[in-house]
Protein backbone atom coordinates (compact mmCIF):
# COMPACT_ATOMS: atom_id res chain seq x y z
CA UNK A 1 0.00 0.00 0.00
CA UNK A 2 1.37 3.39 -0.97
CA UNK A 3 2.05 6.06 1.61
CA UNK A 4 -0.72 8.22 0.12
CA UNK A 5 -3.34 5.46 0.45
CA UNK A 6 -2.23 4.76 4.01
CA UNK A 7 -2.59 8.45 4.89
CA UNK A 8 -6.10 8.48 3.43
CA UNK A 9 -7.08 5.46 5.50
CA UNK A 10 -6.02 6.99 8.82
CA UNK A 11 -9.06 9.30 9.28
CA UNK A 12 -11.35 6.41 8.31
CA UNK A 13 -9.72 4.15 10.89
CA UNK A 14 -10.01 6.89 13.53
CA UNK A 15 -13.71 7.39 12.70
CA UNK A 16 -14.32 3.64 12.90
CA UNK A 17 -12.67 3.47 16.31
CA UNK A 18 -14.78 6.39 17.51
CA UNK A 19 -17.90 4.58 16.31
CA UNK A 20 -16.88 1.42 18.17
CA UNK A 21 -16.23 3.44 21.34
CA UNK A 22 -19.62 5.18 21.03
CA UNK A 23 -21.38 1.84 20.52
CA UNK A 24 -19.61 0.38 23.57
CA UNK A 25 -20.59 3.38 25.69
CA UNK A 26 -24.21 3.32 24.57
CA UNK A 27 -24.61 -0.41 25.10
CA UNK A 28 -22.88 -0.52 28.52
CA UNK A 29 -25.26 -1.25 31.42
CA UNK A 30 -26.19 1.77 33.55
CA UNK A 31 -25.17 2.04 37.22
CA UNK A 32 -28.78 1.28 38.13
CA UNK A 33 -28.70 -1.90 36.09
CA UNK A 34 -25.36 -2.98 37.54
CA UNK A 35 -26.41 -2.33 41.14
CA UNK A 36 -29.97 -3.63 40.90
CA UNK A 37 -30.94 -7.18 41.76
CA UNK A 38 -31.21 -9.65 38.90
CA UNK A 39 -34.82 -10.24 37.91
CA UNK A 40 -36.44 -13.62 37.38
CA UNK A 41 -39.53 -12.69 35.39
CA UNK A 42 -42.67 -14.76 35.01
CA UNK A 43 -46.38 -14.25 34.40
CA UNK A 44 -49.21 -14.24 36.93
CA UNK A 45 -50.53 -17.71 37.63
CA UNK A 46 -47.09 -19.31 37.74
CA UNK A 47 -44.72 -19.60 40.70
CA UNK A 48 -41.70 -17.41 39.99
CA UNK A 49 -38.66 -18.50 41.96
CA UNK A 50 -35.44 -16.64 42.76
CA UNK A 51 -32.67 -17.75 45.08
CA UNK A 52 -34.14 -16.05 48.18
CA UNK A 53 -37.88 -15.78 47.52
CA UNK A 54 -40.74 -17.08 45.44
CA UNK A 55 -44.09 -15.59 44.53
CA UNK A 56 -47.26 -16.59 42.74
CA UNK A 57 -49.90 -14.01 41.77
CA UNK A 58 -53.43 -15.44 41.71
CA UNK A 59 -55.38 -12.34 40.75
CA UNK A 60 -55.54 -8.55 40.62
CA UNK A 61 -58.37 -6.17 41.43
CA UNK A 62 -58.76 -2.39 41.29
CA UNK A 63 -61.03 -0.69 43.81
CA UNK A 64 -61.89 2.68 45.29
CA UNK A 65 -62.01 1.34 48.85
CA UNK A 66 -60.71 -1.65 50.78
CA UNK A 67 -62.75 -4.09 52.82
CA UNK A 68 -60.22 -4.97 55.50
CA UNK A 69 -60.27 -8.45 57.07
CA UNK A 70 -62.85 -9.01 59.80
CA UNK A 71 -61.48 -8.12 63.21
CA UNK A 72 -59.07 -5.49 61.82
CA UNK A 73 -59.04 -2.05 63.36
CA UNK A 74 -61.04 0.47 61.34
CA UNK A 75 -58.80 2.39 58.97
CA UNK A 76 -59.98 4.89 56.39
CA UNK A 77 -59.05 3.63 52.92
CA UNK A 78 -60.82 6.24 50.80
CA UNK A 79 -58.49 7.40 48.05
CA UNK A 80 -58.29 10.02 45.34
CA UNK A 81 -56.60 7.32 43.26
CA UNK A 82 -57.30 3.62 43.15
CA UNK A 83 -56.23 0.59 45.16
CA UNK A 84 -54.53 -2.24 43.31
CA UNK A 85 -55.15 -5.41 45.33
CA UNK A 86 -52.84 -8.27 44.35
CA UNK A 87 -53.77 -11.72 45.64
CA UNK A 88 -50.36 -13.34 46.06
CA UNK A 89 -48.63 -16.28 47.70
CA UNK A 90 -45.07 -15.56 48.83
CA UNK A 91 -42.29 -17.46 50.56
CA UNK A 92 -38.74 -16.92 51.70
CA UNK A 93 -36.51 -19.78 50.55
CA UNK A 94 -33.27 -19.76 52.57
CA UNK A 95 -33.50 -17.25 55.41
CA UNK A 96 -36.23 -15.28 57.18
CA UNK A 97 -37.24 -12.27 55.10
CA UNK A 98 -39.85 -9.60 54.55
CA UNK A 99 -41.41 -8.05 51.46
CA UNK A 100 -41.55 -4.39 52.50
CA UNK A 101 -39.20 -3.26 49.72
CA UNK A 102 -41.41 -4.80 47.03
CA UNK A 103 -42.65 -2.46 44.34
CA UNK A 104 -45.51 -2.36 41.86
CA UNK A 105 -44.16 -0.91 38.62
CA UNK A 106 -46.75 0.72 36.39
CA UNK A 107 -46.17 3.01 33.44
CA UNK A 108 -42.62 4.04 34.35
CA UNK A 109 -43.36 4.66 38.04
CA UNK A 110 -43.06 2.38 41.03
CA UNK A 111 -45.24 2.25 44.12
CA UNK A 112 -44.57 0.93 47.62
CA UNK A 113 -46.92 -1.55 49.30
CA UNK A 114 -49.28 0.03 51.82
CA UNK A 115 -49.15 -1.07 55.47
CA UNK A 116 -52.81 -0.13 55.94
CA UNK A 117 -53.78 -3.61 57.17
CA UNK A 118 -53.00 -3.83 60.89
CA UNK A 119 -50.77 -6.70 62.00
CA UNK A 120 -48.99 -8.98 59.59
CA UNK A 121 -49.49 -7.91 55.99
CA UNK A 122 -47.53 -8.07 52.77
CA UNK A 123 -45.83 -4.75 53.63
CA UNK A 124 -44.96 -5.59 57.23
CA UNK A 125 -44.66 -9.37 57.53
CA UNK A 126 -41.36 -11.01 58.35
CA UNK A 127 -41.56 -14.76 57.88
CA UNK A 128 -39.39 -17.83 58.29
CA UNK A 129 -37.92 -19.76 55.37
CA UNK A 130 -39.72 -22.48 53.39
CA UNK A 131 -43.20 -21.41 54.49
CA UNK A 132 -45.74 -20.12 51.96
CA UNK A 133 -48.15 -17.36 52.94
CA UNK A 134 -51.14 -16.15 50.97
CA UNK A 135 -51.91 -12.48 51.43
CA UNK A 136 -53.07 -9.29 49.71
CA UNK A 137 -50.41 -6.90 48.47
CA UNK A 138 -52.00 -3.43 48.47
CA UNK A 139 -50.84 -0.53 46.32
CA UNK A 140 -52.42 2.92 46.20
CA UNK A 141 -51.81 4.44 42.77
CA UNK A 142 -53.15 7.39 40.75
CA UNK A 143 -56.19 6.48 38.68
CA UNK A 144 -54.32 7.41 35.52
CA UNK A 145 -51.89 4.55 36.19
CA UNK A 146 -54.54 2.04 35.10
CA UNK A 147 -54.19 3.33 31.54
CA UNK A 148 -50.85 1.51 31.33
CA UNK A 149 -52.81 -1.76 31.20
CA UNK A 150 -49.97 -3.86 32.61
CA UNK A 151 -47.91 -3.92 35.81
CA UNK A 152 -44.92 -5.72 37.28
CA UNK A 153 -44.75 -6.85 40.90
CA UNK A 154 -41.11 -6.87 42.07
CA UNK A 155 -41.01 -9.04 45.20
CA UNK A 156 -38.12 -7.78 47.27
CA UNK A 157 -37.16 -7.88 50.93
CA UNK A 158 -35.19 -5.15 52.64
CA UNK A 159 -32.03 -7.25 52.58
CA UNK A 160 -31.88 -7.93 48.84
CA UNK A 161 -28.40 -6.99 47.59
CA UNK A 162 -27.07 -6.07 44.17
CA UNK A 163 -26.68 -9.12 41.91
CA UNK A 164 -29.13 -11.06 44.12
CA UNK A 165 -32.16 -12.45 42.31
CA UNK A 166 -35.73 -11.20 42.79
CA UNK A 167 -38.97 -12.67 41.44
CA UNK A 168 -40.85 -10.30 39.13
CA UNK A 169 -44.41 -11.14 38.17
CA UNK A 170 -45.98 -9.49 35.16
CA UNK A 171 -49.74 -9.01 35.23
CA UNK A 172 -52.59 -7.37 33.38
CA UNK A 173 -54.36 -4.57 35.24
CA UNK A 174 -58.16 -4.77 35.42
CA UNK A 175 -60.21 -2.45 33.20
CA UNK A 176 -62.99 -1.98 35.75
CA UNK A 177 -62.65 -0.27 39.12
CA UNK A 178 -64.81 -1.83 41.82
CA UNK A 179 -66.36 0.13 44.64
CA UNK A 180 -64.64 -2.09 47.18
CA UNK A 181 -62.19 -4.99 47.19
CA UNK A 182 -61.83 -7.59 49.92
CA UNK A 183 -58.42 -7.79 51.55
CA UNK A 184 -57.18 -11.21 52.64
CA UNK A 185 -55.83 -11.97 56.06
CA UNK A 186 -52.28 -13.32 55.80
CA UNK A 187 -52.47 -17.10 56.18
CA UNK A 188 -49.96 -19.94 56.08
CA UNK A 189 -50.76 -22.24 53.16
CA UNK A 190 -47.94 -24.79 53.18
CA UNK A 191 -44.28 -25.49 52.62
CA UNK A 192 -42.26 -23.89 49.84
CA UNK A 193 -40.39 -25.76 47.13
Amino acid at each position, binding site marked *: MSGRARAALRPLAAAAMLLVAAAATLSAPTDDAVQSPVETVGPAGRTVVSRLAEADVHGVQAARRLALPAGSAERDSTTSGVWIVVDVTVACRLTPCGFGESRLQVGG*RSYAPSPIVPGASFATMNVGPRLRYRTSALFEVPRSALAAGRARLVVQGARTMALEGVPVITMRLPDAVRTSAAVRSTVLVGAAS
Partner: protein
Amino acid sequence: MSRPPRTARRGRPAVVVAAVALLIGGVALLGGFADVPRERLPVLPLGGTYDNGLYSVSVRSVRVVDRDPVSGSGATRRVVVADVDLLFRGDAPTTGAALWLAPLDAGLPAQPALDDVRVVDERNGLTEPVQPGLPLRTVYTWTLPTTTRVEPGDRVRLGVYERYEVEDAAIDGVTTDSVLVAFFRSGAS
Protein backbone atom coordinates in the same frame (compact mmCIF):
# COMPACT_ATOMS: atom_id res chain seq x y z
CA MET B 1 11.70 67.12 28.00
CA SER B 2 10.47 70.04 30.12
CA ARG B 3 8.88 69.52 33.58
CA PRO B 4 5.10 70.32 33.94
CA PRO B 5 4.26 73.59 35.63
CA ARG B 6 4.18 73.47 39.47
CA THR B 7 0.37 74.20 39.64
CA ALA B 8 -0.42 71.19 37.43
CA ARG B 9 1.63 68.87 39.69
CA ARG B 10 -0.20 70.22 42.74
CA GLY B 11 -3.58 69.41 41.13
CA ARG B 12 -2.78 65.71 40.48
CA PRO B 13 -3.69 64.33 43.95
CA ALA B 14 -7.04 66.08 43.79
CA VAL B 15 -7.78 64.47 40.41
CA VAL B 16 -6.86 61.03 41.77
CA VAL B 17 -9.03 61.50 44.88
CA ALA B 18 -11.92 62.70 42.73
CA ALA B 19 -11.54 59.69 40.41
CA VAL B 20 -11.53 57.24 43.34
CA ALA B 21 -14.53 58.98 44.88
CA LEU B 22 -16.36 58.75 41.56
CA LEU B 23 -15.48 55.06 41.25
CA ILE B 24 -16.69 54.28 44.77
CA GLY B 25 -19.86 56.28 44.24
CA GLY B 26 -20.55 54.51 40.96
CA VAL B 27 -20.02 51.04 42.47
CA ALA B 28 -22.20 51.94 45.44
CA LEU B 29 -24.95 53.14 43.08
CA LEU B 30 -24.76 49.86 41.17
CA GLY B 31 -25.21 47.77 44.34
CA GLY B 32 -21.86 47.83 46.11
CA PHE B 33 -19.26 45.10 46.37
CA ALA B 34 -21.62 42.43 47.77
CA ASP B 35 -21.23 39.12 45.91
CA VAL B 36 -24.86 38.54 45.07
CA PRO B 37 -27.81 40.66 46.01
CA ARG B 38 -30.02 38.84 48.53
CA GLU B 39 -33.04 37.35 46.82
CA ARG B 40 -36.44 37.94 48.25
CA LEU B 41 -38.05 34.63 49.12
CA PRO B 42 -41.62 34.04 48.04
CA VAL B 43 -44.05 34.49 50.93
CA LEU B 44 -47.14 32.32 50.63
CA PRO B 45 -50.39 32.68 52.53
CA LEU B 46 -51.96 29.70 54.25
CA GLY B 47 -53.87 27.81 51.57
CA GLY B 48 -51.33 28.83 48.92
CA THR B 49 -49.21 26.29 47.05
CA TYR B 50 -45.47 26.08 46.52
CA ASP B 51 -44.68 23.96 43.47
CA ASN B 52 -41.15 23.26 42.22
CA GLY B 53 -42.12 20.72 39.59
CA LEU B 54 -40.95 17.74 41.66
CA TYR B 55 -43.25 18.30 44.60
CA SER B 56 -45.92 20.73 45.63
CA VAL B 57 -46.88 21.63 49.19
CA SER B 58 -49.98 23.48 50.28
CA VAL B 59 -50.15 24.40 53.95
CA ARG B 60 -53.72 24.71 55.21
CA SER B 61 -52.99 25.54 58.84
CA VAL B 62 -50.12 25.83 61.33
CA ARG B 63 -50.43 25.89 65.09
CA VAL B 64 -48.37 25.41 68.23
CA VAL B 65 -49.82 22.98 70.76
CA ASP B 66 -48.61 21.38 73.97
CA ARG B 67 -49.80 17.88 73.13
CA ASP B 68 -48.90 15.77 70.08
CA PRO B 69 -52.24 15.32 68.28
CA VAL B 70 -51.07 12.14 66.55
CA SER B 71 -49.66 10.14 69.46
CA GLY B 72 -51.56 11.97 72.20
CA SER B 73 -48.40 12.20 74.26
CA GLY B 74 -46.94 15.46 75.40
CA ALA B 75 -47.32 18.32 77.81
CA THR B 76 -43.54 18.32 78.30
CA ARG B 77 -42.55 19.52 74.81
CA ARG B 78 -44.23 22.01 72.51
CA VAL B 79 -45.29 20.66 69.12
CA VAL B 80 -45.84 22.53 65.85
CA VAL B 81 -48.67 20.93 63.88
CA ALA B 82 -49.42 21.70 60.23
CA ASP B 83 -52.11 20.38 57.92
CA VAL B 84 -50.44 20.01 54.54
CA ASP B 85 -51.50 18.75 51.11
CA LEU B 86 -48.68 17.08 49.19
CA LEU B 87 -48.17 15.96 45.63
CA PHE B 88 -44.94 14.23 44.63
CA ARG B 89 -44.20 13.87 40.91
CA GLY B 90 -41.14 11.60 41.04
CA ASP B 91 -41.09 8.10 39.62
CA ALA B 92 -40.71 6.20 42.91
CA PRO B 93 -42.10 6.54 46.44
CA THR B 94 -40.27 8.99 48.69
CA THR B 95 -39.69 9.18 52.42
CA GLY B 96 -38.12 12.62 52.00
CA ALA B 97 -41.27 14.67 52.61
CA ALA B 98 -40.10 15.33 56.19
CA LEU B 99 -37.34 17.51 54.71
CA TRP B 100 -39.61 19.70 52.60
CA LEU B 101 -40.96 21.87 55.44
CA ALA B 102 -39.74 23.14 58.83
CA PRO B 103 -40.90 25.85 61.26
CA LEU B 104 -38.80 29.02 61.12
CA ASP B 105 -39.55 30.74 64.40
CA ALA B 106 -39.53 27.90 66.88
CA GLY B 107 -35.90 27.28 67.77
CA LEU B 108 -35.51 24.32 65.42
CA PRO B 109 -32.54 24.00 63.06
CA ALA B 110 -33.24 24.20 59.32
CA GLN B 111 -32.72 20.46 59.25
CA PRO B 112 -34.43 19.07 62.38
CA ALA B 113 -33.49 15.59 63.59
CA LEU B 114 -35.69 13.05 61.84
CA ASP B 115 -36.89 11.79 65.24
CA ASP B 116 -38.48 15.20 65.79
CA VAL B 117 -40.45 15.29 62.52
CA ARG B 118 -43.35 13.11 61.48
CA VAL B 119 -45.49 13.15 58.36
CA VAL B 120 -48.62 11.09 58.77
CA ASP B 121 -51.46 10.31 56.44
CA GLU B 122 -54.45 12.33 57.65
CA ARG B 123 -56.84 9.45 56.82
CA ASN B 124 -55.36 6.78 59.02
CA GLY B 125 -52.30 8.07 60.89
CA LEU B 126 -49.87 5.90 58.92
CA THR B 127 -46.35 7.10 58.14
CA GLU B 128 -46.00 5.35 54.81
CA PRO B 129 -43.88 6.89 52.01
CA VAL B 130 -45.48 9.45 49.70
CA GLN B 131 -46.46 7.67 46.50
CA PRO B 132 -45.72 9.38 43.19
CA GLY B 133 -48.56 11.16 41.44
CA LEU B 134 -51.02 10.66 44.28
CA PRO B 135 -52.30 13.75 46.15
CA LEU B 136 -52.03 13.19 49.89
CA ARG B 137 -53.51 15.02 52.89
CA THR B 138 -50.99 14.89 55.71
CA VAL B 139 -50.36 16.15 59.21
CA TYR B 140 -46.80 17.29 59.91
CA THR B 141 -45.62 17.45 63.51
CA TRP B 142 -42.35 18.92 64.78
CA THR B 143 -41.41 18.33 68.41
CA LEU B 144 -39.68 21.50 69.62
CA PRO B 145 -36.62 21.65 71.86
CA THR B 146 -37.28 22.37 75.52
CA THR B 147 -35.50 25.71 75.06
CA THR B 148 -38.08 26.99 72.60
CA ARG B 149 -39.77 30.27 73.42
CA VAL B 150 -42.94 29.67 71.46
CA GLU B 151 -46.15 29.03 73.35
CA PRO B 152 -49.39 27.40 72.32
CA GLY B 153 -51.30 29.92 70.24
CA ASP B 154 -48.16 31.67 68.94
CA ARG B 155 -47.73 32.10 65.22
CA VAL B 156 -44.86 30.43 63.42
CA ARG B 157 -43.88 30.55 59.78
CA LEU B 158 -43.18 27.37 57.86
CA GLY B 159 -40.13 27.34 55.61
CA VAL B 160 -40.13 25.36 52.36
CA TYR B 161 -36.83 23.64 51.62
CA GLU B 162 -35.20 22.12 48.58
CA ARG B 163 -32.00 20.11 48.55
CA TYR B 164 -29.04 21.27 46.51
CA GLU B 165 -25.62 19.85 45.83
CA VAL B 166 -23.05 21.54 48.06
CA GLU B 167 -20.00 19.34 47.56
CA ASP B 168 -18.84 16.80 45.04
CA ALA B 169 -16.51 14.45 46.89
CA ALA B 170 -14.55 11.92 44.84
CA ILE B 171 -15.16 9.04 47.26
CA ASP B 172 -18.38 9.85 49.08
CA GLY B 173 -20.16 11.21 46.03
CA VAL B 174 -22.38 14.25 46.11
CA THR B 175 -23.31 15.92 49.39
CA THR B 176 -26.55 17.88 49.50
CA ASP B 177 -27.98 20.37 51.92
CA SER B 178 -31.39 21.94 52.51
CA VAL B 179 -31.91 25.44 51.18
CA LEU B 180 -34.80 27.68 52.22
CA VAL B 181 -36.72 28.65 49.08
CA ALA B 182 -40.01 30.09 50.36
CA PHE B 183 -42.10 30.31 53.45
CA PHE B 184 -45.72 30.16 54.47
CA ARG B 185 -46.94 33.05 56.54
CA SER B 186 -48.81 32.00 59.66
CA GLY B 187 -52.34 33.35 60.02
CA ALA B 188 -54.30 35.29 57.42
CA SER B 189 -52.38 37.34 54.86
